[in-house]
C-alpha cells in the first residue's frame, strides 16, 4: 500500500473518532428534543459545568472560593483532600440530577405551551447563567481532568502498521489517540444502553410516549413533569460523559461549551429526533471535515473545520429538509 493511501485511512479513522466525540454531545440534544420539543442550546455548557464540577469535587476545591475571597477578604481555595474518582463521578451525577430538577421546577414548568423559539431562547439564557455560575463556583482557570483514562498515541498500532507501506517510502505508522478509542467504546456502550433503556423499561416507554404526543401521554397518566426531570437528568449524564471525554482531551475550559455549536450540524444531518441519526451524522461530519481539511484545506488557507460541517449539513438539508433520519415533516393548513 502506498503511504498516501495509508495517510488517507488514518485521516478517515481520526475523523470517525472525532465524529464520535461530536455525537456524544449531539445525543444529549436529541434526548431533550424528542421528549420535550426543546432545542437545548445549553447542552454544551452542561458538559462544561459537569466537567468543572467533577474536577472541583475530585481535587477538593472550595466552591465559590473566588466570591468568598472577594467579599470577606479571605484566601481559601482548597479543602486539602482528594476524592476518589468513582465517588466524584457519582457526586457529579447527583449534581446534574439536582440541576435537572431545578430547571424543571423554575424554568420549564413556567414555559409550558410557549412557542419553540421562546423555549430555545430560554435555554440560551440558561446557558449564559450556567456559564457564569460554573465560573463563579469553580473558577475560570484551565483545569486538567484526570480520571485515569489512557492518553497519547497507541504505540502498538504504530509499530503494527509500520510495515504496511510500500518499500522505500517514508512512513512512521498510523497515529491514533488512545483516548479517542476509549471514547468510541464509551459512546457505543452509551447508545446501546440508552436504546435498551428506552425500548425495554417502563420509564423508557413513558419517555417514548411523551416524545410521540404530549397530550396523549398525559391522558394515559404519564406525568410530564417527572418525565422532563428524567430526560434532563439523562441529558445531564450524557453531558457529563461528553465533558469527561472532551475535558480529558483538551483540558476543562470555556471552549468546551463551544462543542455545542459543533454538535448542531451533526444534529441537522442526522435529524433532531433520531438517536442513531446523531451517531451517523457525527461520523459523516467527522470524516467529512477531516478529509476536506486534509485534501482541499491547504489549497484555500486551512482552518476549514470551522464552517465545513455547516456547509455540508446545509447541502444535505436542501435535499432532505428533515435530516437523514428525522421524522418526515408533514404540513397541514
Amino acid at each position: 500500500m502506498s503511504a498516501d493511501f495509508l495517510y488517507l485511512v488514518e485521516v478517515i479513522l481520526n475523523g470517525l473518532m472525532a465524529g464520535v466525540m461530536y455525537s456524544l454531545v449531539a445525543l444529549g440534544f436529541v434526548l431533550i428534543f424528542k421528549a420535550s420539543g426543546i432545542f437545548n442550546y445549553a447542552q454544551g455548557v452542561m458538559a462544561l459545568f459537569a466537567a468543572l464540577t467533577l474536577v472541583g469535587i475530585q481535587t477538593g476545591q472550595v466552591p465559590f472560593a473566588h466570591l468568598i475571597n472577594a467579599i470577606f477578604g479571605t484566601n481559601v481555595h482548597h479543602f486539602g483532600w482528594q476524592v476518589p474518582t468513582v465517588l466524584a463521578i457519582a457526586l457529579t451525577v447527583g449534581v446534574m440530577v439536582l440541576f435537572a430538577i431545578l430547571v424543571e421546577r423554575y424554568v420549564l414548568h413556567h414555559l409550558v405551551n410557549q412557542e419553540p423559539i421562546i423555549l430555545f431562547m430560554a435555554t440560551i439564557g440558561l446557558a449564559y447563567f450556567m456559564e457564569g455560575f460554573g465560573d463563579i463556583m469553580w473558577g475560570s482557570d484551565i483545569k486538567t481532568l484526570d480520571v485515569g483514562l489512557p492518553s497519547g498515541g497507541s504505540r502498538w498500532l504504530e509499530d503494527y502498521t509500520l510495515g504496511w507501506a510500500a518499500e522505500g517510502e517514508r512512513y512512521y505508522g498510523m497515529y491514533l489517540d488512545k483516548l479517542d478509542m476509549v471514547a468510541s467504546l464509551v459512546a457505543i456502550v452509551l447508545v446501546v444502553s440508552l436504546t435498551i433503556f428506552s425500548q425495554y423499561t417502563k420509564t423508557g416507554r413513558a419517555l417514548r410516549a411523551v416524545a410521540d404526543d404530549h397530550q396523549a401521554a398525559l391522558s394515559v397518566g404519564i406525568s410530564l413533569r417527572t418525565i422532563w426531570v428524567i430526560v434532563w437528568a439523562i441529558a445531564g449524564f450524557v453531558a457529563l460523559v461528553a465533558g469527561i471525554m472532551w475535558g480529558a482531551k483538551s483540558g476543562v475550559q470555556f471552549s468546551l461549551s463551544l462543542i455545542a455549536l459543533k454538535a448542531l450540524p451533526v444534529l441537522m444531518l442526522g435529524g433532531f429526533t433520531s438517536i442513531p441519526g446523531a451517531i451517523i451524522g457525527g461520523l459523516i461530519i467527522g470524516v467529512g471535515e477531516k478529509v476536506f481539511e486534509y485534501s482541499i484545506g491547504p489549497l484555500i488557507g486551512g482552518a476549514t473545520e470551522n464552517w465545513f460541517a455547516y456547509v455540508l449539513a446545509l447541502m444535505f438539508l436542501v435535499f432532505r429538509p428533515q435530516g437523514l433520519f428525522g421524522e418526515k415533516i408533514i404540513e397541514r393548513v
Partner: protein
Amino acid sequence: MFYRESGDFKKTYKLDSQTFPIKFDRWRYYFVMLVAFIVVPMFLTDYSANAVMIPFLVWAIAALGLNILVGYCGQLSLGTGGFMAVGAYSTYKLMTSFPGMDMISVIMLSGLVTAVVGAFFGLPSLRIKGFYLAVVTLAAQFFLVWLLNKVPWFYNYSASGQISAPQRELFGIVVTGPHATPVAAYLFCLIFAVGLAWIARNLTRGRMGRSWMAIRDMDIAAEIIGVNPLMAKLSAFAVSSFFIGVSGALLFSVYLGAAEVTEAFSINVSFAVLFMVIIGGLGSIFGSFIGAAFMVLMPVLLKNILVGGLGWPTDLAAHFELIIVGGLILVFLIVEPHGLAQMARVLKEKLRLWPFPH
C-alpha cells in the same frame, strides 16, 4: 387623561392611515425626536456617547433588521454577526478604494452589498424551516467570518489582519476616525437609526410587511392565498441584511474605529442581537429600540455597580454579569414572553381608560 381618542376626528383617508393615529402618540413621537436631535447632543459627553448612546443606536439598527426577519417574517437567523461583518468590511473597502465618496453613500452601499449576501444565504429558507434553518444560518456566520479572515484582499493585506477606519467628513464635519467629536458621531448614527426605523415601520405596514407576516403565521396557507413565498422570504432576508449591514458599517466606522473580524463579529454578536429582539418584543419596531437599550445599558450599569461600587475584581464581575444576563433573560421569558413592547402595549391600554377603568 392620556390617549384620548374622542374628539380626534379623521376627515381624510390620509389622516386615517397615518402611523400614529392618536394625537398623544404623535406628540410623544415629536417630543422624542426633539430630545434625541437637540437635547441629547447638548449634554453629550465623551463617556456617555461612547459607552451608551452610540452603541445603543448601532445595536438598535441591528435589532431592527433582525426583528424584520425573525419577528415579522418568522425566519430564525443566527447569522447576524457574519452579516454585520460583511457590512463592516464593505465599508472599509469602499472607504479605502474611493476616498472621495461621501459617508452616507458608503454606508448605504455597504448595506446593499450585505443585502445581496443575505438574500443569497436566505435561499435555503425556501426548503429548510424552523430550527434547521437557524442552524443553516450558522453556516453563514462561520463561513463569512472565516472568509473575511482568510482572504487578505478584504483587509488590504494589513499585517495584523485588522481593519481601521480612516478619517472621513460629511458636509465638512468629521464623522469617522479618531478626530470625530462625540456629537457628530452620535448625530450621524441617529440619522441612520431614525431613517431606517421610519422605513421599517412603513414597510411592515404595507404590502410587503403583510406578506411577511402571512408567511410567519403559516407559510402554506400564505402560499395558497397568493403570497409568493420566494419573494416574501428573500425580500425579508434582503431587507433585514440591509439593516444589519448598515449597523455593522456604523459599528466599525463610527463606534469601534478598528475591528478584527473573529473578535468583533463572533457568534456572540448574533446571540446578543437575538436577545435584544426577544427581550424587546418580536414583531415590534419600538421593541427593537428598547431591547437594544436594555442590552447596552445593563452591562454598563452592572460594571459600575460591581467594579466601581463594590470593588470586585473585573473577572468576577464579568462572571456575575453572565449570571445576571442569563437570569434576566429567563425571568423575562417567563414573565412576559412577548417582550418589553408588550408591556408598553398593556400600559397603553391601561392609560386609555385611566382614571376610570370599567
